[in-house]
């Protein structure tokens, strides 16, 4: 996973964090943090809505997770992989009909008002459930939120809802917005969506469109002594090449989310005072997937799908396209997931001869020009790597006599072509695994999904057995039984290939060495940075 040009800090701080963090103190923590300073980081977009309670996406979190906090954050070593934020304790009822949260006391909103259970109830019922992109799925059965006192909230569900799912959704889906700011207003158009008010370590100070966001230290933060920084500036750098240059010119301190392209990493890792960090994205794993349109009669044949899987050299993809910063996939759950992943699934070794014989068997012999059939291949344009994999896949398919025509669109065009018009045969997609298969993974193979939903099964695939497992897991309360169901799910997906999982990758952070406590949790780039500090 870690390739050449790895800095010392990567090895010390993150490389072994998953395995040993409970035993060995991290080096960064051994230093005495310094107060003050302005951290400047690169940002590549300016979201139209910065309220993470409404828009749970990494682009929004990157800025607003420092301002608005969730009930709990992901953690390398905490219980259930969580560390408390606005909630200090959580428990699910055995019947799955309720979940209770103990809330932190002494927390103040940035405008000085106290944070109470009423804010949590309001956010859950008026923002997460009706408005939030993922909350609409996870909290669909949420009926009421009781607030017996100012620091307790009890979520009541109309139907049994696995607490495991709620728990796994806490970091991304439960950002708490202030009731007193949103109540009685048009929530979607509230000005606080562009200048969020939260309880986080930094308050939103200023947005200069096209130039920067400025966050300033919240002096009344509940964690005494934190945050260390005076300010965080997000400098908007739209050009792909700009972040690396700005780091080298010492105009910014840090570029997250692989803003520095993979091809530049090896060079920039050698620059003194700059570190490349691959940790801190474990809970934001992206998956490289070949989406298949099962309406094509050739692709509806399992042997053809198996042939395509055999034609892909995953090792080559990892080494050449991702330059080693990725892992080959076995199935729909990434191997770095510690709850659900199983490696005990059917696999498809790179084997062109086997692929060719499968296609012969399926009744698609090579024509006079060596071609068995033609199809359209639409690589998603969002990442360099998805585009490059599209080029690779075209060549790999040519090896087995399938002539693929590459169709390139921009983001909006791709979304329309694949997820609305179904005008594709194969597509390359980068779905995200969000800590629980029910959040955004089962939707990739589930049948009956309305047309137009991005990152969902729009290939016309329908498998009653997989649908049954998905439905059952959605109401299975026992964590072990639920895990067993999702293991079955992985086996079935790998066996029937509704889509082909090729590789999975986390992003890289490139930071100047003066920035401390980088990547110390699995969602670091989108966490609150309260303990981040700058060495003078």
């Amino acid at each position, binding site marked *: 996973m870690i390739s050449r040009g790895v800095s010392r800090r990567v090895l010390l701080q993150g490389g072994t964090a998953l395995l040993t963090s409970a035993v060995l103190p991290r080096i960064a923590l051994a230093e005495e943090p310094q107060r003050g300073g302005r951290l*400047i980081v690169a940002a590549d*977009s*300016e*979201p*139209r*809505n910065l309220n993470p309670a409404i*828009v*749970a*996406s990494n*682009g*929004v979190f990157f800025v607003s997770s420092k301002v608005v906090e969730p009930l709990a954050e992901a953690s390398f070593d905490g219980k259930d992989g969580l560390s408390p934020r606005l909630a200090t304790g959580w428990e699910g009822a055995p019947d799955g009909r309720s979940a209770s949260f103990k809330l932190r006391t002494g927390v103040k909103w940035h405008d000085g008002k106290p944070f109470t259970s009423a804010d949590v109830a309001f956010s859950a019922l008026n923002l997460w459930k009706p*408005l939030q*992109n*993922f909350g*609409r*799925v996870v909290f669909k059965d949420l009926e009421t939120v009781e607030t017996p006192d100012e620091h307790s909230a009890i979520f009541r569900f109309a139907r049994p809802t696995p607490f495991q799912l709620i728990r796994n959704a806490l970091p991304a889906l439960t950002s708490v917005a202030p009731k007193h700011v949103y109540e009685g207003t048009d929530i*979607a*158009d509230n000005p606080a*969506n562009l200048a969020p008010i939260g309880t986080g370590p930094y308050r939103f100070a*200023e947005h*200069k*469109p*096209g*130039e*920067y966001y*400025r966050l300033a230290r919240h002096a009344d933060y509940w964690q005494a002594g934190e945050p260390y920084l005076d*300010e965080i*500036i997000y*400098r*908007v*750098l*739209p*050009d792909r*090449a*700009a972040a690396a*240059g*700005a780091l*080298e*010119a010492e*105009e910014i301190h840090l570029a997250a989310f692989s803003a520095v392209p993979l091809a530049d990493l090896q060079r920039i890792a050698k620059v003194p005072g700059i570190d490349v960090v691959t940790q801190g994205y474990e809970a934001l794993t992206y998956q490289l997937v070949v989406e298949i349109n099962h309406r094509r009669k050739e692709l509806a044949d399992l042997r053809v799908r198996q042939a395509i899987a055999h034609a892909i050299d995953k090792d080559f993809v990892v080494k050449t396209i991702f330059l080693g910063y990725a892992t080959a996939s076995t199935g729909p759950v990434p191997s770095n997931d510690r709850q659900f992943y199983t490696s005990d699934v059917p696999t498809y070794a790179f084997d062109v001869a086997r692929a060719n014989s499968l296609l012969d068997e399926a009744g698609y012999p090579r024509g006079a020009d060596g071609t068995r059939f033609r199809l359209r291949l639409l690589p998603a344009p*969002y990442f360099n790597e998805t585009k490059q994999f599209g080029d690779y896949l075209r060549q790999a398919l040519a090896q087995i006599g399938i002539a693929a025509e590459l169709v390139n*669109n*921009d*983001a*909006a*065009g*791709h*979304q*329309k*072509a694949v997820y*609305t*018009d179904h005008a594709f045969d194969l597509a390359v997609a980068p779905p995200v695994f969000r800590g629980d298969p029910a959040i*955004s993974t089962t939707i990739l193979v589930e049948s009956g*999904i*309305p*047309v*137009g*939903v*991005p*990152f969902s099964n729009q290939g016309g695939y329908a498998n009653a057995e997989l649908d049954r497992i998905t439905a059952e897991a959605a109401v299975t309360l026992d964590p072990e039984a639920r895990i067993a169901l999702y293991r079955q799910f992985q086996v079935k997906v790998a066996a029937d290939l509704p889509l082909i999982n090729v590789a999975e990758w986390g992003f890289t952070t490139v930071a100047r060495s003066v920035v401390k406590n980088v990547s110390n949790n699995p969602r670091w780039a989108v966490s609150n940075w309260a303990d981040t500090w700058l060495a003078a």
Partner: protein
Amino acid sequence: MKRALVLLRRRLFGAVPVLLIVVAGTFLLLEAAPGDAVDAYAVSVGGDAGLIEDLRRQWGLDQSPATRLATYLWALMRGDLGWSVSFSRPIRDLILERLPTTFLLMGTATALSFGLGTLLGIVAGARPGSLRDRTLSLASLALYAVPGFWLGMVLIVIFSIQLRWLPIGGIETIASGKSGVDRALDIARHLVLPVAALGFIYLALYLRMMRAGMAEIWRMDFIAAAKARGISRRRLVLRHVARNALLPLVTMLGLQSASMLGGSVVIESVFAVPGIGRLAQEAVASRDAPLLLGIILISAVLVIVVNLAVDMAYALLDPRVGADEASP
């Protein structure tokens, strides 16, 4: 002066249909591109079918293209540029906020390419065919052949990363709290590289045109007459040859203002300058039709105004222009 006013009136009337065609054309082009604003947004956040339907209704995208164009034009007639869904802000504010930056960038770059291009053109055209002429022509052509974004990136690598003389991008030091002269100097420092990248490329055009014009005029009879009258060489070059070759350059200046806007899309992205060009690119990527229409409209007005100014300058410079219309 009367000629100029007649011209002005005629041009202003002619501008209205031009603007209408520009608006309708842009709208249709963006309509023909696959995907709409909701598609573009859904890609970045994900979401279920209900959310996508709700958004489409809220953003008015469930209506037919004809209805949307009519709504837009109706609002436009009342002076309302509309609301940008991709920025959640009024389009008027978005454009006004970025227009000064683009004006500054374009204006300085135009001045640089026109001024320096003309000057070097005179140097080259003073002795057509000389070594000096050939060197200048070749060098300017080489610059013209370089893509703008590449030149920009090379300048950044040399002057911002290696030498660290100039900032890597932006329009001013972020959140610096500077004001007055300090701030003006800061902005000037930030403008050096983008202006150079944008200006150097168009410089060749003026240089070549000036040189070609002068080469032609050298062969004319009145030059021979002037030579015979014993006018000094310096006066001959500047007053007789260069001045006559200058007229077509003024026309070129008007035409270039349009392509300069196109070039600023690229340069503004490379140098992270918050201007209209970058806004246009973001409007296309997010399929924000009203925003793009607003930008195109403002740009069209700008081009019309610049060309009008050029025509007026022409009318003042050359007595023949517009003479027949003014004396019916």
